[in-house]
């Protein structure tokens, strides 16, 4: 049990009443679903949002629930079927859910939810073992053009952002994406071990997964897939090195279908205020997430374009039969 000291709780009450007096909560109560088990990226996003929303007094109570399973397919099904028209419900999702819904042939699609905003993005990094003959993106392009199957990629789950990025890289480099030799590892650093041990040609995963190894000089960073370099770290982009490819692992929030225009407006405003708060900027810095805030119709358009692109890649690497 955690007991607040009386003085502390009194301060909290005073602070809360003061807030109430000046500006009513835009959103008094919010339910936030992370369609994954505690600990992963979506869960951390949801819990960071909870922390910021409540600390900055934007929302009186925020409740985080976890609905794990099948890359978010179970969570989104619950959102669409059970929360229709609920203006206090949000769900965290992201790039990975798109691939999962397509490969799982989910009956529920992202077109059914109400897009609210894209929040963060994480660049993908391509790394090679230190003793690898591959020194640059051009070397990798040459190798993959010569024989795509001899370039062994290590990364996260099949059909996830790492796999898609590897497929897109092959395609952009002018090789046949159906022939790539991508070896999925179940998260948690198994892929990293295979790269460090020199078992594979290249590794592809979120920059955060490799960052400390790169800084310690145990892995060679070839390129990141983000549009720009990371601040304070030498991270050459693919575009800088002549490969026209941009892909980030973005995360966003969406609301259930069937909410009113007013409800949508309130939710969007709450998130807008949250993103602009110093507390959120602090969270981004801590977690190494890039700010990728995009809301309203622009976000809806982005979602659609991204879905088309994912569908195309997954089909071309043979994970989705069209």
């Amino acid at each position, binding site marked *: 049990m955690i007991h607040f000291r009386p003085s502390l709780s009194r301060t909290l009450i005073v602070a809360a009443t003061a807030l109430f007096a000046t500006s009513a909560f835009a959103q008094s109560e919010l339910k936030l679903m992370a369609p994954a088990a505690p600990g992963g990226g979506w869960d951390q996003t949801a819990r960071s949002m909870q*922390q910021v929303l409540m600390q900055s007094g934007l929302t009186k109570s925020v409740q985080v629930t976890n609905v794990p399973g099948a890359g978010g397919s179970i969570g989104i099904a619950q959102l669409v079927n059970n929360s229709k028209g609920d203006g206090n419900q949000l769900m965290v999702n992201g790039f990975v859910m798109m691939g999962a819904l397509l490969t*799982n042939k989910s009956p529920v699609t992202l077109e059914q939810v109400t897009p609210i905003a894209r929040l963060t993005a994480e660049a993908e990094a391509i790394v090679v073992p230190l003793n690898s003959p591959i020194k640059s993106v051009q070397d990798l392009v040459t190798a993959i053009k010569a024989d795509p199957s001899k370039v062994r990629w290590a990364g996260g789950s099949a059909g996830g952002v790492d796999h898609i990025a590897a497929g897109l890289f092959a395609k952009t480099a002018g090789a046949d994406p159906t022939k790539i030799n991508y070896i999925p*590892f179940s998260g948690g*650093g198994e892929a*990293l071990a295979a790269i460090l041990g020199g078992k594979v040609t290249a590794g592809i995963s979120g920059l955060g997964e490799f960052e*400390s190894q790169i800084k310690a000089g145990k892995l060679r960073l070839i390129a990141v897939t983000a549009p720009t370099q990371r601040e304070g770290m030498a991270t050459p982009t693919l575009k800088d090195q002549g490969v026209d490819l941009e892909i980030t692992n973005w995360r966003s929030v969406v609301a259930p279908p069937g909410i009113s225009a007013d409800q949508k407006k309130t939710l969007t405003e709450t998130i807008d205020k949250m993103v602009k708060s110093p507390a959120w900027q602090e969270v981004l810095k801590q977690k190494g997430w890039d700010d990728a805030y995009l809301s309203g119709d622009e976000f809806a358009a982005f979602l659609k374009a991204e879905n088309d692109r994912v569908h195309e890649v997954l089909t071309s690497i043979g*994970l989705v039969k069209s």
Partner: protein
Amino acid sequence: MEAFTSLASGLSVAIQPMNLLFALIGVLLGTAVGVLPGIGPALTVALLLPITFKLDPAGSIIMFAGIYYGGMYGGSTTAILINTPGESASMATALEGNLMAKAGRGGPALATSAIGSFVAGTIATLGLTLLAPYLVEVAVSFGPEDYFALMVVAFVTVSATFGDSPVRGLTSLFIGLLLGLIGIDILSGQSRLSFGVPELYDNVEVTTLAVGLFAVGEALYVASRRHIHEEKLEAVRGSLWMTKEDWKRSWKPWLRGTAFGFPIGALPAGGAEIPTFLSYATEKRLTKHPDEFGKGAIEGVAGPEAANNASAAGTLVPLLTLGLPTSATAAMMLAGFQQYGLNPGPLLFAEQPALVWGLIASLFIANAMLLVLNLPLVGLWVKLLAIPQPWLYAGILVFATMGTIAANPSPVELIMLTIFGVLGFLMRRFDFPIAPVVVGLILGPIAESQLRRALSISLGDPMVLLQSPISATLLGIAVIALIAPFALKNLGRFKAVED
């Protein structure tokens, strides 16, 4: 002896009163969640992360480590007393431990598990202190083909859990392998045998299967036989404490269990379950009391318990030296580190020595705390067995159901629990061993995916299994383990003829 001076300065961090308090909270919480089937240390750390955000980093990371060790302890208590392994790593403990409890030897079983965990945890933490930088080199050089070979060794030793009939044992194992096929295939991303049920995409949860087969199955079986033949449970027969004989039979298994647990725990894809099976199989083979296996042999508790605690310390090797989280709990601890802007990895030891050594030192303290906490409780725990059977088993059913629901709130999970419970009942009724099913579910998918990864890397050439020295050695051990019993038997026959 730089490591020892660092450790000494770490101790000075760990014995600060606030950090001691955090360690205590950690081990208490850990023991509590370890006892509950389904709720593991990973979930607990995840739920605590946002709360600990404001705390001092050293304190909360020390608390997380306490939870981790405590969870390993707690899981064995329920495994021994009510045949409900709280974590899958306690399953091997349940095999002999519960039989001991039923024979009135619950006290010594709990004691050997507590002391064995302490011994193993301490030795393994020492190993972490001294060997971490070297061990990690070996761990990283383990490729998919080597993991596959390790799985083959594990498969060969599984037969130790078969009981009297190899045919029945193999049948059970294949049920487990079949269940292991359900869900999304990790290499191709396609779902298999899931019949469009989204809950099945994520594979059959090991804890759901173990709790269903062990706890629910047992409850149904006991209920079905109540009127035919009432089993008399004696809570305590003989001493509540370990006798001199018990000590003599326990210390070697503790050490061997540690020798399995620590290195395998340190492998990025090693895990806690495999060393417990290997330890169980080894003890069964080496024991001087083979007749007692299957009736409650203390070696079968001492070894696996030491192995699972040692593997918990092993997991910290890749986490601290490489930033590789190799278990769900380690992944959560990594998130904990990152929350404070700390990046575990090659630089952590250099950049944050006080924190790292404070953590390692507090592992020693957490271990000692757990021993002090658990030994006096042994007497209290065994009283559980004096509860009238109908109440006890009704309680177990509630417990099992709640734990499953808490871990995975879905009706499908409950239906699976029920099906596995009925399966467990039928298997008991018709004398099929239960453990191989769970072993199959754990080992099958790992063996399959590692073999396919190895073949992907070698572009389909199976020779890779023999070209890697580690893999070739392990496969050699597997062949010897498989052939040796037959060869020895025939040798014995020859000798008999010669005489």
